[in-house]
């Protein structure tokens, strides 16, 4: 599903050049539940942004769904994001003046799905999240866990192949965190690849595989589940 080879990324701030990713090699198979761990500054968010087509890589090869991602137009990137990827963010990123249903339906608006149809679908997804009766509430009337479930419903509604979650439990208490993680696991069991960026060990240990990032390189890969691990082999670093 995802293949990264020798990915480099640096940011230029003024006269300084900050080398954030220093050659990442990674192969993520379809249907994996994977976490990326690392302390702040390790480059994990940058990696997620590159995976999520929110940022370009400088060097290396990125193959997503059998398609090599090179610098592409913003319009095309938007389309790919819309069709292939679903995002879940730490701060939920719901649109404050739209109710839960409209927030969930929004990705379909950009797919030009009719209003009636996308609202119906949105209600279905909210129902799956157990939020049907909250459909017409505004985000500020929802609890953190509810907001995150709305965000997950929004990520799911386009039936993406990959869910990218950036610290999905970062703003939640431990009970809600576990609920959200169960939800993500459930999604993963339906065959969707789920990639979670986190700095919490217990969250990472709920996933099948943990990628430990440190200073822009993969320090180690831990397989939590030996059964799932047979095919996901670390690709040797190439020269």
């Amino acid at each position: 599903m995802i293949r990264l080879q020798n990915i480099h990324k640096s940011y230029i701030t003024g006269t300084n050049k900050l080398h954030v990713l220093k050659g990442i090699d990674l192969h993520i198979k379809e249907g994996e539940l994977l976490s990326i761990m690392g302390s702040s500054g390790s480059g994990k968010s940058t990696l997620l942004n590159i995976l999520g087509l929110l940022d370009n890589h400088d060097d290396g090869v990125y193959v997503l769904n059998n398609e090599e991602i090179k610098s592409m137009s913003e319009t095309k990137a938007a389309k790919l994001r819309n069709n292939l990827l679903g995002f879940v963010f730490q701060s939920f990123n719901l649109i404050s003046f739209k109710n839960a249903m409209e927030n969930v339906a929004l990705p379909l608006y950009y797919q030009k799905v009719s209003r009636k149809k996308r609202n119906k679908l949105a209600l279905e997804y909210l129902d799956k999240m157990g939020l049907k009766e909250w459909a017409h509430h505004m985000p500020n009337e929802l609890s953190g866990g509810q907001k995150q479930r709305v965000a997950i419903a929004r990520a799911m509604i386009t039936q993406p192949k990959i869910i990218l979650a950036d610290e999905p439990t970062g703003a939640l208490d431990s009970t809600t965190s576990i609920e959200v993680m169960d939800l993500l696991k459930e999604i993963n069991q339906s065959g969707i690849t789920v990639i979670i960026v986190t700095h919490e060990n217990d969250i990472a240990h709920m996933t099948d595989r943990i990628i430990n990032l440190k200073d822009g390189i993969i320090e180690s890969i831990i397989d939590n589940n030996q059964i799932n691990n047979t095919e996901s082999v670390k690709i040797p670093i190439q020269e």
Partner: protein
Amino acid sequence: MFDRDKWQEIFSTIRKNKTRTILTGFSVATGIFMLIFLLGAGRGLRNGMTSVFAQDATNSMQIYGGRTTKAYKGTPEGKFIQMVNDDFLNLKKSIEKIDAISAMSYIPGAETISYKNNFGNFNVSPVHDTYKEIKNFEILKGRFLNQNDLDEHRKVVAIQDEVKKVLFPNETALNKFININDIKFKVIGVFHQQSFDDNSREIYIPITVAQKIFNNNDHIRRISFTLDNVSVEESKNIEQQITYKMAARHNFSKEDKNALWIQNNIENSQTFAGLFSAIEMFVWIIGIFTIVLGVIGVFNIMMIVVRERTKEIGIRKAIGASPSSVVGLILMEAIFITAASGYVGLIAGVGLLEAINQFDMIEKIYAPAAIYFIDPQVDLGIAVGATVVLVITGALAGFFPARKAAAIRPIEALRDE
């Protein structure tokens, strides 16, 4: 473009910032209001002036005798040039482009005109029958003088409606006899004429009669004529021809500008047309600058909107909004604010003009000005033009903010907590 969701989003952001949006819209509305109102008022002024000047046909000229300022062939300067019937006949024959020509003489002494116990001082002008083609009369009753009246020296008179009101307050005037310097004249017509002067009270009698019974000479005071389809250049040529002919006949220098006084309405009306075009242009400039100020306001507010919505735009992009859809959103909001508020200004401007028209407001505020202000209106072309200006300026006001919004990178927007 007519996508319900897009409109809903636009309205929801407008609703969030009601006061700010209304204040911004107000400046655009003021701009359009000023433009429409001033253009309409300018049009009213032009209509008024045109109708006032219409008392003299715009293709007419008038010649008056003057006083020489140059000595010529033994005649000292200061000689009065007295035009006579022969001058009239000569001009009538020799200027080929002449359409209608009439002379006017005068009656010496007090002009007390009476009918039974009613009397007044009116201006009695002895003219030819053709005078009706030079001056724009509206015949209300009867007729104007005709050829037979002149040929047969009939003692007949055409009176202005104002004169009729004084002499015949409660009865019809036609075929009644009025006294002009103790001589009876039969009323053959009542007319109306536009004039600068509200007090104009005119009476016309055949020039042949006046010369015979009042003056006993062939003097004339002025010659008026209209020209058939001539340019300003040609009219100036004709002016010169006349000066030369009259100089030869009356023995004054061709170069003497004061021996004859020639009023060239063809030239004057062109000057007026130019003046009004200039006023109109001035109004456009004021209006456009006011609109520009309003548009800068819209531009400003859209920049703020984009800044405030950075995060939201980032979210939209992350979940698949293309740059063009973001641009469309901002652009349409800007166009909507300008177009809607501009339309309000347009309606207000047209409404005020209509109100002035309907309720004769000028008449009530300052009556003497009323005749200079007729039918203030903006035509469809200007309304359409203003609308086009609004949409274009709205798009301009939205363009840079929209481009800024499109350039927002989702990661940076999402980082913005």
